[in-house]
């Protein structure tokens, strides 16, 4: 693995979404970086790659995937990794991220971010898969904490202990989704502030900020609402303890005009500025 580390990047960004393609092609959008959903651009050609090439000329790009299935007990699919590597070679991204979850074993792929049991066996599996992916991609991997809606009876450690050990063993980095911490904490009965205290802050390279919805008996990570106050509060708590990070609003559904997201991103900038000044 030629690249052993990921240089920190400080800035505020947004996800590149289809309704905003034209804005990015024709306007001076005030973001420091853009995040793409990798799979949307792991295609042969056409408009998606055309837009991506144009965007890449103007902004640093972070690649964020949803299909790696890093927790699969039978490993990560080689056909997926080959395509991901090809896209990373084309984009030369800030980094390549995916989720601490699994989607498939064998031939069936749920295309959902399914929860892992926090066991020693799962930790061994995830770490072995990360080592393999990092070797293929020739770069460290960044992994995001997902929203979860259950825990397993066999769990042997907390999610944050799992993340800490995972980064220690593999040298991977973290994308901390603050909304997911809040959603999982509410659903599974842990204190989000314990989570923040247990995460290895020096490994965090990116922050996701998003909204959620109230489902029957669970908060659902829908990414279809503005960032709510409890998530902003968590962001304000963790931000001063981090090194330089790339923070962004993640909106995947009920997507508003770009200006609305830029206004929301300004809230992140303001909070980050305020809490950094207060900590100085």
């Amino acid at each position, binding site marked *: 693995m030629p690249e052993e580390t990921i240089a920190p990047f400080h800035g505020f960004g947004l996800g590149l979404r289809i309704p905003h393609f034209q804005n990015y092609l024709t306007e001076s959008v005030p973001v420091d970086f853009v995040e793409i959903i990798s*799979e949307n651009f*792991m*295609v*042969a*050609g*056409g*408009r*998606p*790659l*055309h837009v991506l090439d144009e965007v890449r000329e103007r902004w640093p790009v972070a690649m964020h995937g949803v*299909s790696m299935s890093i927790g*699969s*007990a*039978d490993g990560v*699919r080689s*056909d*997926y990794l080959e*395509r991901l590597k090809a896209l990373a070679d084309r984009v030369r991204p800030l980094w390549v991220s995916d989720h601490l979850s*699994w989607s*498939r*074993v*064998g*031939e*069936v*792929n*749920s*295309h*959902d971010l*399914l*929860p892992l*049991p926090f*066991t020693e*066996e*799962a930790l061994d*599996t995830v770490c072995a898969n990360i080592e393999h992916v990092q070797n293929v991609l020739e770069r460290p991997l960044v992994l995001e904490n997902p929203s*979860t*809606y*259950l*825990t*397993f*009876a*066999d*769990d042997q450690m907390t999610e944050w202990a799992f993340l800490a050990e995972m980064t220690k063993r593999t040298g991977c980095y973290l994308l901390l989704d603050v909304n997911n911490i809040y959603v999982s904490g509410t*659903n*599974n*009965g842990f204190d989000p502030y314990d989570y923040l205290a247990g995460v290895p802050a020096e490994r965090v390279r990116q922050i996701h900020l998003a909204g959620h919805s109230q*489902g*029957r*008996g*669970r908060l*659902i990570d829908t990414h279809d609402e503005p960032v709510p106050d409890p998530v902003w509060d968590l962001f304000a708590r963790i931000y001063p303890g981090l090194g330089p990070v790339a923070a962004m609003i993640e909106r995947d559904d009920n997507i508003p005009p770009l200006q609305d997201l830029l206004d929301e991103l300004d809230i992140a900038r303001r909070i980050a500025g305020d809490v950094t000044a207060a900590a100085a």
Partner: protein
Amino acid sequence: MRLLDLQRDFLDFLVDAPSDIAVGGDDGIGLAVYHNAYSAQLVECLKDSYERLWAWLGDEAFETAARRHIAGHPPHSWTLADYGVDFSATVADLYPDDPEVAEIAALDWALRRAFDGPDAPAFDPQQLGAVDWDEAVIAFVPTLTLLSVKTNCALIWNAIAAEEEVPAAEMLPEPGWVRVWRVGLQPHFASIETTEMGAIQLASSGMSFARLCDRLSEEIGIEIAVDAASRYLASWVQDQMIAEIR
């Protein structure tokens, strides 16, 4: 429970088997969230890929068809974009007396595939004069697909897309074909006659254009063939269907 066994059981549960997964708390709500999300996401995926079919069938009928498809077709590909490749067969089974349904589905899918299919610059018409037509072989753009049709599905699709009055489904006087391809970044389609479909297939097989004209002459007579071949060539060049003439 071993991780591999847990993951197999979890996927079986999502696809629709009873669960004996040992979850914390055991209120069943968490598992239900994942179960609902699995099928809901696949329904949304099919709606996205089959937008005009969705409009033609309406919400309720489309959702019924989608859920029938999902029950028998768990996803296998690494990419969700591949899901629904065989949805037209499912709706063909569901609507045996309405052949336009499966044809609209096939057209939706072909256009979706053309949207992000391989790039290829179109042949420059100014180079036509330099072509040695005794030896020339035509290579079409890689997004070109041919669909066999019996109904006015193309008219229906266009009317839905343009938000115009949608015609009733009708059988064509004779079975025909639709060619689908991409011009620049924009997918296109056009209805064509069976003779043109045959010419495209011959050209795609690597046959020279001169030999293709001979074959057309044998089939439909030299006078008609000469006229047809020149019309086809002109439209293929104008429609930017040709990537290369070598």
